């Protein structure tokens, strides 16, 4: 029983034993270890200590599997991004986390030496002895203390209280720092959000480099001195200054000490950002050589629309962002000329696009209609997904409801196939039985108040992909006596229309995380957020603690919310898995959102000389952090 409390409990044991044996072999071979050429001058002049002193006493040892091999040092990895703000993705690609996912989505200690979870509510973290920030200062429990006492519990810095993921039913944790290398978070009830939040692509940073940030903090720096700094920076007050200096995720402050494999060295605004290797990084390969292999990561900023063209011209060594399947042929054409290869990874969303009928529509007749599950089912089986797949995606995708992917451990075939067959007779039959037999002169069915059944579907109108798909859907729905009008608008306007209930229906991306594990929150499947386009007002109601929005008033949605809440209180994975399955089942029966196709391949361009990048992978934000879980610190240039 105890063993099942937390999946990660089983998984950290193995790496620890590897660690210890690895450490033994490391100490014996330490003298033979080659130094890193990039730092050889600094080490020779005494600016940096030698490598053995820069890595923690018990470093994390990278595991190589399959065709991956240990590599050589050197090289520059070039990436293309569309905006200078995108350098935050280096925090995603770098993927040094307190606790991180493996490609199999198990949670393992990474920056931490190990961690234990008791009863789903007491979390004890053990740090690595001798681990240092990128500026050489020790990384100890002091970093956690600074964050806890001087940042989140400071009224100026966090005027609205703790981040939601640190609160369990309104209760903050008791945080203690037993010694330099141990930190403990303790709640009276389980907090299943805590560990996944640390492993997320945009992680919750519960530690901060106090030794650097104190100079911007009113508790440590006299007011006059702070005031001049505030004015220089052009911010409103010291809290703004402190936040601006401490944006580990944004990566925009080159002075901020970091624990990532590469640290930004360029101050924005710039067109080209250089990330230099972290001399104190905590991971080593199995020969005890410090990672990362690659010396520098260079991020060039260009306009989004040029990324595909530049990638095709060989100006990126590793590119997935801003290229899409419709660039595939162009990229392939450049392959031999520019010495790269294009791999097709699978994308991680539950459905490439999904149709969201707005259950919170302001139109009462329409609202009653879409709240009828029969109607949603009829619309779903009235879509020819095979045709969409063949016409738009060269047959490379797969028909699917908006649910988890086949590669997911929670997957059941019926989640994907229920109500996704193409059956016009069945759909017509359902609509007839609902009493909409009468049609107008064009053959459009009439709704109960006599208006023709014309659906205005809103899209964010960013690409032709959406409109092409809707063209096909419009044709087959017309055979059901349903007329589809497509209205593209700018994204903010689009969202406003859906939120306010003006939109009848919307087309947008499907479920973001298509391969969750039972330990990941099922929030996307319950009305918990305003951005869920099928029930924005119910989501808003939950999000704002019943202050704004409307309470869910159909039994199935209420049931989903109850299940979600019982997931939040659950103590172990077995319980969570049962809850997940129940929620997925409700979804596939109720068709709250109409999925189209999943598994649309994502082209990933890889320089031919770049090693250890998987041939096949999943390109997803959560949980994979795009390249993050494949650990780019182990990539190397031949």
């Amino acid at each position: 029983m105890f063993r099942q409390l937390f999946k990660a409990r089983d998984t950290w044991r193995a790496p620890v034993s590897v660690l210890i044996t690895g450490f033994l072999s490391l100490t014996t071979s330490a003298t033979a270890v080659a130094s890193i050429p990039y730092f050889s001058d600094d080490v020779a002049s005494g600016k940096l200590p030698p490598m053995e002193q820069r890595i923690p006493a018990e470093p994390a040892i990278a595991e190589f599997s399959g065709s991956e091999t240990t590599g050589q040092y050197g090289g520059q990895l070039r990436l293309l991004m569309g905006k200078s703000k995108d350098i935050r993705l280096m925090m995603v690609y770098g993927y040094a986390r307190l606790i991180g996912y493996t490609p199999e989505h198990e949670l393992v200690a990474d920056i931490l030496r190990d961690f234990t979870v008791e009863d789903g509510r007491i979390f004890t973290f053990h740090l690595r002895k001798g681990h240092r920030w990128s500026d050489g200062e020790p990384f100890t429990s002091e970093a956690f203390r600074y964050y806890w006492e001087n940042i989140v519990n400071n009224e100026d810095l966090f005027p609205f209280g703790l981040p939601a993921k640190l609160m369990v039913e309104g209760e903050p944790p008791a945080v203690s720092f037993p010694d330099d290398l141990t930190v403990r978070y303790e709640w009276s009830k389980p907090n299943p959000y805590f560990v996944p939040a640390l492993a997320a692509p945009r992680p919750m940073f519960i530690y901060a480099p106090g030794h650097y940030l104190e100079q911007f903090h009113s508790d440590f720096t006299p007011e006059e001195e702070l005031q001049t700094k505030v004015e220089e920076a052009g911010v409103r007050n010291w809290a703004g200054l402190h936040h601006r200096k401490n944006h580990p995720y944004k990566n925009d402050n080159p002075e901020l000490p970091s624990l990532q494999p590469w640290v930004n060295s360029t101050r924005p605004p710039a067109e080209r950002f250089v990330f230099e290797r972290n001399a104190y990084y905590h991971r080593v390969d199995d020969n005890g050589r410090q990672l990362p292999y690659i010396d520098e990561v260079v991020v060039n900023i260009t306009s989004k629309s040029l990324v595909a063209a530049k990638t095709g011209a060989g100006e990126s060594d590793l590119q997935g962002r801003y290229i899409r399947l419709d660039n595939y042929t162009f990229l392939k054409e450049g392959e031999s000329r520019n010495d790269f290869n294009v791999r097709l990874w699978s994308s991680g969303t539950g459905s490439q696009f999904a149709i969201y009928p707005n259950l919170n529509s302001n139109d009462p007749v329409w609202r009653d209609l879409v709240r009828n599950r029969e109607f949603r089912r009829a619309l779903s089986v009235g879509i020819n997904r095979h045709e969409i797949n063949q016409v738009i995606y060269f047959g490379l995708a797969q028909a699917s409801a908006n649910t988890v992917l086949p590669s997911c451990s929670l997957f059941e075939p019926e989640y994907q196939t229920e109500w996704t067959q193409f059956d016009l007779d069945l759909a017509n039959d359902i609509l007839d039985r609902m009493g909409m037999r009468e049609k107008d002169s064009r053959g459009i069915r009439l709704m109960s108040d006599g208006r023709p059944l014309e659906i205005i579907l809103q899209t964010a109108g960013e690409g032709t992909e959406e409109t092409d798909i809707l063209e096909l859907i419009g044709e087959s729905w017309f055979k059901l006596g349903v007329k589809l009008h497509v209205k593209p608008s700018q994204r903010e306007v689009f969202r406003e229309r859906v939120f306010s209930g003006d939109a009848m229906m919307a087309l947008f991306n499907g479920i973001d995380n298509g391969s969750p594990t039972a330990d990941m929150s099922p929030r996307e499947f319950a009305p918990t957020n305003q951005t869920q386009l099928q029930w924005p007002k119910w989501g808003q109601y939950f999000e704002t603690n019943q202050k704004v929005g409307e309470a869910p008033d159909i039994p199935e949605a209420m049931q989903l919310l109850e299940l979600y809440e019982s997931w939040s209180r659950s103590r172990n994975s077995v319980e969570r898995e049962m809850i997940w399955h129940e929620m997925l089942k409700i979804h596939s029966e109720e068709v709250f959102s109409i999925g189209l196709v999943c598994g649309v391949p994502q082209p990933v361009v890889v320089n031919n000389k770049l090693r250890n990048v998987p041939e096949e992978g999943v390109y997803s934000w959560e949980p994979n952090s795009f390249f993050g879980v494949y650990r780019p610190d182990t990539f190397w240039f031949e």
Partner: protein
Amino acid sequence: MTYYVIKRLGMMIPTLLVISFIVFVIIQLPPGDYLETYIAELESQGESVDQDKIKFLRDQYGLDDPFMVQYFNWVSGFISGDFGYSFEYDLPVREVIGDKIWLTILVSFITILVTWAIAFPIGMYSATHQYSWGDYGLTLLGFIGLATPNFLLALVMLYFANVWFGTSIGGLMDPEYLDQPWSWGKFKSVLEHLWIPVVVIGTSGTAGMIRRLRANLLDELDKQYVMTGKAKGLPPFKLLTKYPLRMSLNFFIADIGSLLPSVISGAEITAIVLSLPTTGPMLLDSLQSQDMYLAGTFLMFLALLTVIGMLISDLLLAWLDPRIRLQGASLK
């Protein structure tokens, strides 16, 4: 004359104030504000933002202040050279614009020079050889330049420059020279990239200028003073440049007014397609994301330059052309 200049300068202040107000209103018109755009952008990539964080930022940026308060904060800062804060870059506006403006001026300036260098000889040739093969041929070429969409031409040229000459796509220099001090290599790299935007932006401007110069010159060429000059035996080229060309330059001087703002705005569409590190793409981005102080500051600069440019071309015209000067005086 002095009185006239002072009066014009005095008029500029209320004009700019009105413009600043209109600019601010228009930027604020679309629903939502910068933070909503920001959240929407993050969410489209799967990211999410804590509501608490948003509340904090809203407070920091003063987005919940009443409209007039926001406006006055911005306008009053302008006088002291404080243009507000760019949310998108998380930096004061001045720092954001600073670097880009020089490259923009470089591109625009060279484009203008090239445009003149091409348009003047062709315009003169077309006018003096009206309805000849040369006139038709060059006119056709000019019209093709005018009719081809700039962005299309830009993309085609980018592709072939890359495939044939190995020029890196987009930008004003090879990536390795960005943020580096100037060197011979960097200079060469800039030249290698510069000709594409210059040609692309220049083509449409050239055609327009050729046509106007030709039309203006044709008006003058038939006048009697030209005939007299010819009869007196002046060499044709000297005659052309000394009299009718100078007479037909009024349109060119009047153009300076609109030229000045375009020097710093660059050709937006082309700059976006070519990913030039100029101010055009930045202006568009800031308008789209409602980064209001950055967008507002840009638009105010454009307005200021337009107003100044107009003043300069009016003064130049009066100085250059006695007809304008004397007619104005006789009306008083």
